[in-house]
C-alpha cells in the first residue's frame, strides 16, 4: 500500500475544509472494507485518508418521530442490532445482515456501500425503496438529493470530489406498509449478488389494495436501479399474483445486465423477475403485520 497521511477530524466543518484542501487526492474512510482493499491492490491511491468515524453527524443513528437518520459512517451491524429498525424498516436489516460476514458487518457502512457505487451494492435498493434522502455537505454548503441519484455508474457517484455524504434520512413508514430485500448468490453467505431486489408497498386500510409501491433492483444495470414504472403499475391494484407478476415483468424489462463470472444476462433477467415478485409478496405480508425475519 502506498504511503498516505491519515487525518481524523472531530467536526464536520473541519472534515469539509480538509476535503476542499485536498479535493481529488483525499478519500474518506468509513469502514474501509472497500477502500483499504482498493488501496492495497492499487486501484486507489489517495494521498490523504480522512477518517469519517469521529464526526458526530456521520455516526448518528436516530429515530425521531418515526423518521430514521442513518449517519453515513454507521456500521451495518449497528443497524441490524437496533430492535426498532428491525421492526419498522425490515428491508434495511435484510440487507445489513447479508453484507459479508459478521466481521465485515461490524465495519461496513451504508454510506460506504452507496459511495463505493458498486452495481451490486446490497444496501442501496432498500434505501431507494424507502425513499431515502442523501444529505451532503462540503465547505461550499449543504445539499440534499434523492438517494437514487447518487450512483451514476460502476464506482462513480454524483458527489463532487470535495463533498461528504453526511447521512441518509428515511421518512416514517405509513400504516399498512411493508418492505423486503432479497439477494441471489450461489451460497448462503459471503458472496456478491448475482442479482438483488427490494420492494416496498403501502396498502390501503383493507390490506387488499396497493396504494403505492417502489421497486429497486441491483447487479443488473450499471447502477442500483430504481424502477419507478414497476412501482407505479401497482398503484390501485389488488394484492394478488397477477399484479405482482406484471410489476416483476416491468422490473425484468428495465434491467440491462451483463454476462460475467457470476451469471449470464438470461439468468440475471430471470432472477430479477423472481426476486422482485418474492420481495413484493414478502413486503405485502409484512404490511399485513406478519413478522418475517
Amino acid at each position, binding site marked *: 500500500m502506498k504511503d498516505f497521511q491519515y487525518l481524523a477530524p472531530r467536526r464536520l466543518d473541519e472534515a469539509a475544509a480538509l476535503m476542499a484542501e485536498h479535493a481529488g487526492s483525499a478519500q474518506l474512510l468509513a469502514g474501509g472494507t472497500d477502500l483499504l482493499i482498493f488501496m492495497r491492490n492499487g486501484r486507489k491511491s489517495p494521498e490523504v485518508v480522512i477518517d469519517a468515524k469521529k464526526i458526530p453527524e456521520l455516526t448518528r443513528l436516530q429515530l425521531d418521530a418515526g423518521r430514521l437518520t442513518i449517519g453515513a459512517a454507521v456500521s451495518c451491524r449497528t443497524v441490524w442490532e437496533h430492535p426498532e429498525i428491525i421492526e419498522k424498516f425490515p428491508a434495511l436489516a435484510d440487507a445489513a445482515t447479508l453484507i459479508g*460476514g*459478521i466481521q465485515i458487518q461490524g465495519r461496513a457502512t451504508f454510506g460506504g456501500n452507496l459511495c463505493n457505487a458498486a452495481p451490486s451494492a446490497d444496501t442501496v435498493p432498500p434505501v431507494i425503496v424507502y425513499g431515502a434522502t442523501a444529505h451532503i455537505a462540503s465547505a461550499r454548503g449543504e445539499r440534499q438529493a434523492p438517494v437514487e441519484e447518487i450512483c451514476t455508474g460502476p464506482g462513480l457517484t454524483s458527489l463532487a470530489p470535495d463533498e461528504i455524504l453526511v447521512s441518509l434520512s428515511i421518512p416514517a413508514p405509513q400504516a399498512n406498509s411493508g418492505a423486503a430485500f432479497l439477494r441471489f448468490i450461489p451460497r448462503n453467505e459471503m458472496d456478491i449478488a448475482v442479482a438483488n431486489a427490494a420492494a416496498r408497498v403501502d396498502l390501503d386500510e383493507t390490506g387488499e389494495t396497493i396504494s403505492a409501491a417502489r421497486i429497486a433492483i441491483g447487479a443488473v444495470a450499471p447502477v442500483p436501479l430504481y424502477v419507478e414504472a414497476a412501482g407505479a403499475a401497482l398503484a390501485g391494484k389488488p394484492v394478488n399474483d397477477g399484479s405482482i407478476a406484471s410489476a416483476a415483468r416491468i422490473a425484468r424489462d428495465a434491467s440491462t445486465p451483463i454476462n460475467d463470472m457470476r451469471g449470464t444476462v438470461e439468468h440475471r433477467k430471470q432472477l430479477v423477475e423472481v426476486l422482485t415478485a418474492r420481495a413484493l409478496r414478502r413486503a405485502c405480508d409484512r404490511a399485513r403485520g406478519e413478522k418475517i425475519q
Partner: protein
Amino acid sequence: MSGKSLVTATINGEEKQFLCEPRQSLLEVLRDVLYLTGTKEGCNDGNCGACSVIVDGVLLDACCMLAVEAEGSSVETIEGLATGDELHPLQRAFLEETGLQCGICTPGFLMSAKALLDKTPRPDEQQVRHWLAGNLCRCTGYDKLVRSVLKAVEA
C-alpha cells in the same frame, strides 16, 4: 511522506503504545510490531477471517482496519483468551472435539465464537453457523467447529 504515528491502545487489557505508519493494518502491527503472532494472515482482503479480533466489543478482520484507527480502543486477540495457564472453555472444547487440524484458521474461529458468546451466551446451531460464516477453514469441513462451539456452550 508522513512518518510514523504514536498510537495508544489497550491490548488484551494492558495499555500499550506503539509506532506505526498510517498504511500499516492492525494485523501487520499486531504481528510485526507487537509480536502477537497468534492472529493469522490468510487472504489479507476480508474474506477468510483468519485475522479476526475484537475491537471495542466489535468482531472485525484486523486486515481491514488501519492500526492508527485503533487509537484509544480496546483490542482483544487470541493471546488474551486463556487466563494464565487456564484455557478458555472454547479452547478446551476445540481440543476435545478436534475443532482443528492444521490450526491456521483456529485463532480466527475462536475469536468469532467468543464474540458470539459475549453477545449470546446460549446460541443455537443456526446462530453458531451464521457467526462463523466469515471464517474459512480448509481442513475440518466446519462440522467439528460448530460442534466444538456448541460443546463450549453446554460446558
